[in-house]
């Protein structure tokens, strides 16, 4: 389904399109937004921008040509910025500056790439395939990789994610980073990419190095942020294999990761709010104080590591099966190493929280249902998406349909 709207510059129109990929992304956004809505009210500015970001994310999902995609993508970058610095501390402002510098540079690269592509091929709608100079694709890929937090340009993630309010961290990690990966998928939908060895190398390095750094990070939310960098690099890794099944896995990983990481960040927010815990080393006995919260945290962690039958396993399996089919052994090894690293940085948290003695005893302080339910819902989604992966209409089916539409 397509709808072509205004011509905003000569020959380029606003163009909306509803296909499997977009539906999956938009639906993910919708549900994740529902999960982050409950919780303490944070004022007019916050609510308004939260709603605006939602609309813009839907715009990213439903964009029908490259220009529309970039437009919503960049507006989303800007709309998220006041949310990141919502707490107004000096740290938050510094993180916001860094975030802006990164995403705007990325946006500039994207615009330049769009200009190159437009000169060569005109209006690039997502229903067609076009021939464009390699430079254009490289610029676009580089621009998207800023948001996708690939290694040399990941710097905004570990600063911005921990500093934002918990729901915003959940959205940033769940969807903001994913918009970069989403853009890359849209790219290879319309143009034949140059050899992607560099993308493979970069994303492989990202998976491994970010994972290693995560194991060495004590700050809980920062560790989760590094984990996002590591985990979301699966998607470009899967893209770079150029296999349809791997691509489907990459697409479905966006959705699965969104709920898992979103849930984890919400848990981290609850821990901070109710127990004042910011650091992993302070988490001893946290599970005894907040058993439900930490139960969800544990389940989501296991999902992220890829313990079957949770959703993280499904995406890893599908990506891995595609890589094995394509004979891409190195990416496959990296994929599994990423899972091992995920265990290395997540399991100590879980273990400490459940089995280590708490620094001080206290009553159970699980949050009230309105804030607890989203976390439990994220955990439930992780289970359902894992067990029911093959059901029609579930993310995997949509992702496979999308990958079929993209070809390979």
């Amino acid at each position, binding site marked *: 389904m397509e709808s072509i709207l205004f011509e*905003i*510059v*000569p020959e380029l129109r606003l163009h909306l399109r509803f296909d499997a990929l977009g539906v999956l992304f938009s639906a993910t956004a919708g549900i994740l937004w529902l999960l982050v809505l409950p919780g303490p009210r944070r004022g007019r*500015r916050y609510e308004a921008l939260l709603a605006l970001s939602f609309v813009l994310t839907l715009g990213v999902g439903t964009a029908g040509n490259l220009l529309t995609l970039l*437009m919503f993508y960049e507006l989303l970058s800007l709309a998220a910025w006041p949310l990141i610095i919502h707490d107004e501390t000096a740290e938050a*402002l510094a993180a916001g*500056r860094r975030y802006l510098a990164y995403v705007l540079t990325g946006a500039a690269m994207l*615009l*330049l790439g769009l200009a190159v592509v437009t000169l060569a091929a005109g209006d690039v709608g997502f229903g067609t395939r076009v021939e464009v100079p390699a430079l254009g694709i490289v610029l676009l890929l580089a621009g998207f990789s800023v948001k996708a937090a690939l290694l040399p340009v990941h710097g905004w993630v570990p600063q911005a994610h921990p500093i934002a309010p918990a729901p915003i961290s959940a959205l940033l990690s769940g969807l903001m980073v994913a918009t970069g990966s989403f853009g890359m998928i849209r790219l290879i939908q319309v143009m034949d990419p140059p050899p992607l060895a560099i993308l493979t190398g970069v994303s492989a390095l990202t998976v491994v190095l970010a994972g290693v750094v995560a194991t060495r990070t004590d700050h809980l939310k920062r560790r989760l942020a590094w984990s996002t960098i590591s985990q979301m690099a699966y998607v470009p890794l899967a893209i770079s294999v150029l296999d349809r099944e791997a691509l489907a896995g990459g697409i479905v990983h966006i959705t699965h990761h969104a709920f898992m990481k979103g849930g984890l960040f919400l848990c981290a927010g609850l821990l901070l709010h109710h127990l004042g815990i910011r650091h992993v080393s302070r988490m001893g006995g946290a599970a005894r104080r907040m058993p439900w919260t930490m139960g969800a945290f544990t389940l989501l962690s296991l999902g992220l590591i890829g313990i079957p039958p949770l959703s993280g396993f499904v995406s890893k399996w599908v990506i891995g099966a595609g890589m094995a089919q394509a004979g891409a052994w190195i990416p496959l090894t990296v994929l599994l190493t990423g899972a091992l690293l995920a265990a290395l940085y997540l399991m100590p948290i879980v273990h400490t929280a459940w089995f280590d003695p708490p620094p001080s005893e206290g009553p159970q302080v699980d949050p009230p249902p309105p804030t607890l339910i989203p976390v439990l819902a994220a955990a439930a989604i992780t289970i359902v998406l894992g067990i029911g992966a093959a059901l029609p209409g579930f993310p995997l089916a949509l992702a496979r349909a999308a990958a079929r539409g993209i070809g390979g």
Partner: protein
Amino acid sequence: MTTHWLPALVAIPIAGGVLVPTMSRRWAPAWGFGVLIATLGVALFLTGLLREDTVSYAVGGWPPPYGIELRFDVLSTFAVPIALVAALAVPFATHSNEPVTTPEGVAVILVGTGGMMGFVVAADFFTLFVFLEVLSISAYGMVAMSEERGAGLAAFRYLLMGTVASIVILLSVGLLYTLTGSLNMADVGQRLPDGGLPLHLAIGGLAAGFLLKAAVFPLHVWLPDAHATAPSAVSAILSGLIVKMGIIGLLRTPGLEHLHELLIWVGAASLLAGALFALVQDDLKRMLAYSTVSNIGLVVLGLAVDRTGATVHILNHAIIKASLFLAAGAFIHRAGSRRIEGTGRSMPLTTSAFAVGGIAAIGIPPTGGFTGKWMIVLGALEAGRWGFAVMILLGAVILALCYARFVVVVAFRPSPADREGTSEAPLVMLVPIFVLAALSVGVGIIGGPFAAFVGK
């Protein structure tokens, strides 16, 4: 096609301005507003006619090239933003009791508007020069009216530089006349010799004068002081409209293609220098002024690679920058001084409009700032000038950081304790700000047809 509405476009504001000093202080702004709305109606009417054909009017019935000719062509559509911004600036100023709302102030604005109208519709170089003087002198007056400290000095500096520019332009016009024997633009364009020192001198002189009027780096030194010390409503007129006259002059200059190489470098330098200067400003209006320098640089660069894009951009930027200056004026009005930290907390609507204006100024689609910038980038790429395309985007990134910085200052810094009870800007300020902000997005959404219209 010919119509008497064309001279009326110039005559209405000037006549209206001349009549203002006869009125009471109370009615002057209303009168000014009415006159400017009427002018806006005429400008819109003429723009509508333009869809069929260029409108031409021979003053006194003397046919060109002998008589004075007024022509309303695509470039003259700038009359619409002129009338609009000026019309909105007047009511905006009333609430803060700025000196521009005195009968003298309104008169200066009206006469200046008339001068700009004459400038954009002039079809021969001497008329062009005359109206340039009319609008420049009005502009000096507008700056001098400010009660800010240093306004007098800024105005004097502006006057000096402006006069130098005027003299250079006048000399060049004379030189052109001796070269071609005509002052009518169409004639001059046809009779231009292929080369030679005199031609280069003439064109170079014209370009230098107009570049100075347009405040291109390094000839921009008069601008920040003048724009920053002027009352905010005036700043909107200065930054949005009057510096653009220099660009329109450049667009009218024949044989500009001889200077493309110069323009592209000067433009790029101005683009980056303006952005960098803007980055280090601590005062919102100074930042906006330097942002104007940067945008003018973009347009000058665009003159060399894509004239249509440059034209589109001056039209859009006029609206965008006016909305930003008006929003800044609202902040300053509520803060009571230039220290505007935290004023945005109690002024969410103004802050939103400021943010929208900032986004448009950076050039994010689908705002007006994007259309022209995009066309210029495409033009640069098509011409094989990669580096300049990169510079344009780099400049946009730096400007984005500038605007973000002031969003932080306005909305994220704590407001001083003695200013707790501030409230949203009054309606008479909000409406102009929002009209302009909405327009700056609106012209972007219809950017394609708009550019096609301008490129005709």
